[in-house]
């Protein structure tokens, strides 16, 4: 029997199905890692130890009797602490909601519980999922930011506190912390996963995503969480995905067509990041991928500014009533964001909404049938040695604003100085083509065969 330590969802799920791993042992293994590392890494707001153990025992009984309900049956999951959980504190990592206990589950939490997943607890977010750095520590190097806003989720997965954790992205809050902490980060198409019961940052930008140990895990999560929900006005009326199935039956001779995003990305990235991208694309080409340059459409110019006016305007309205009563209880950066967002004229907001649709249309046309996915550096640099910031979302915001799906993968460790933080690339596809994107991601993952090993926090 495995003790369940540091397994991916795919590995744990197979062992549970074969009877070689008990959900109770898996949850206990995660709790042991939390006990050892949480005092230093501070990734959790709430750990539901008795609830998780009880759910694991129930899963064990049910699986023994009738087999697993889904690949997530018996798998412990961490939830970013903006996902509502019935009867469990949901704080938004804000003092205003420090004792808030929702009466209902978010739609995504309903789906996870329905699939048999075990809610291990709630992970730390930056306050209201915006820009004030959280208390969470990067396990690769404590002097470097873990990123944000989904900082606790990324760190929890990186050190094996749980095999999967959820996040949300308004600019770069899933893919950036995933890159900074050396895990797989996945953000589906806007509208693919219901946001009902998740505290908003910006209604027309927010997209749920997750961090995992491997690409197939991200596909498992997508298949469970995708689907239309009338309770979310941004929900897309499209069928749920079956991306895990398409990964499991892929043609071994298939190789993807990959477009390398040049232009502004090359200008903004540091030398090590661009050298890493070059090394990766060379390796993919050598393995059979058709690699060519991809020119971004002109409408990319201004897209990050469009993200800012939409994000800040909507954020100011989300918080308008609470802010009028409790402004002094907000952290400095989110407070300034709300105050500036309230000053943005409607004309700028409308232009931002128009530009994002133009950019989306231009990207759909430019990718067309020419590429299966695009590749770019995940971030301008590895996690910066600056704890006053969560890093720059400039490499994620264009895709989030256009609503396109993004998958990022670790590709190695920085060898500059002694920083030892992860390097990563991101893959982007057309909207609602997550199955293709995951297929490319799985191929890239297999081709590169990267194993970062355990972060130094494990050995400290």
């Amino acid at each position: 029997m495995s003790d369940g330590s540091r397994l991916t969802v795919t590995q744990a799920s197979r062992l549970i199905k074969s009877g070689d791993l008990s959900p109770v042992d898996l949850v206990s293994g995660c709790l042991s890692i939390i006990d050892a590392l949480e005092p230093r890494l501070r990734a959790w707001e709430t750990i539901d130890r008795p609830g998780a153990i009880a759910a694991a025992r129930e899963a064990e009984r049910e699986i023994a009797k009738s087999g697993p309900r889904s690949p997530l049956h018996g798998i412990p999951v961490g939830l970013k602490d903006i996902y509502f959980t019935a009867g469990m504190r949901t704080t938004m990592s804000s003092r205003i909601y420090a004792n808030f206990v929702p009466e209902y589950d978010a739609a995504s939490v309903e789906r996870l519980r329905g699939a048999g997943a075990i809610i291990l607890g709630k992970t730390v977010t930056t306050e209201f999922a915006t820009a004030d750095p959280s208390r969470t520590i990067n396990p690769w190097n404590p002097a470097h930011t873990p990123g944000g806003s989904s900082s606790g989720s990324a760190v929890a997965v990186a050190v094996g506190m749980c095999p999967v954790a959820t996040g949300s992205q308004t600019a770069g809050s899933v893919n950036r912390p995933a890159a900074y902490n050396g895990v797989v980060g996945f953000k589906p198409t806007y509208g693919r996963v219901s946001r009902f019961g998740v505290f908003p940052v910006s209604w027309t930008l927010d997209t749920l995503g997750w961090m995992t140990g491997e690409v197939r895990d991200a596909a498992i999560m997508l298949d469970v969480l995708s689907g239309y929900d009338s309770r979310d006005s941004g929900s897309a009326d499209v069928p749920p995905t079956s991306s895990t199935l398409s990964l499991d039956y892929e043609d071994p001779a298939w190789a993807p067509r990959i477009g390398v995003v040049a232009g502004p990305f090359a200008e903004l990235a540091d030398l090590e990041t661009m050298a890493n991208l070059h090394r990766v694309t060379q390796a993919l080409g050598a393995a059979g991928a058709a690699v060519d340059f991809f020119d971004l459409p002109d409408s990319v110019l201004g897209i990050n500014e469009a993200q800012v006016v939409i994000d800040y305007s909507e954020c100011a309205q989300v918080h308008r009533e609470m802010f009028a009563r409790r402004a002094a209880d907000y952290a400095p950066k989110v407070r300034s964001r709300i105050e500036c967002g309230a000053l943005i004229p409607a004309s700028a907001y409308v232009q931002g909404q128009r530009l994002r649709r133009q950019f989306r249309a231009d990207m759909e046309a430019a990718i067309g049938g020419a590429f299966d996915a695009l590749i770019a550096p995940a971030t301008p640099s590895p996690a910066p040695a600056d704890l006053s910031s969560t890093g720059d979302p400039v490499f994620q915001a264009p895709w989030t604003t256009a609503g396109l799906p993004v998958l990022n993968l670790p590709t190695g460790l920085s060898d500059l100085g002694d920083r030892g933080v992860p390097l990563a690339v991101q893959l982007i596809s057309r909207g609602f083509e997550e199955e293709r994107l995951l297929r490319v991601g799985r191929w890239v993952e297999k081709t590169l065969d990267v194993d970062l090993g355990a972060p130094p926090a494990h050995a400290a």
Partner: protein
Amino acid sequence: MTGKGGSGGLLDATLEDFRARARAMWGEGRALEIDEETLRKTAAAVDRMHALSLETTSGPGFYLGEFSRSGQPVQPEHEEPRDE
């Protein structure tokens, strides 16, 4: 991607306008405490949005339609088929 934010003069005018409206909305003391980086980033983004030139000729409503509803890739206004 990272917009040019209009000319330096335009940004200065927008910044001053933002400062004046922040004082009016949030009060003199609080306006002084607004994070300067956030204020500048917002003003530059507003300038950039006002400098955009986008097609507005056909397909009424496309630009503000919800692009997730149908699950279909969006088409720009000038490519949108119209019923006569």
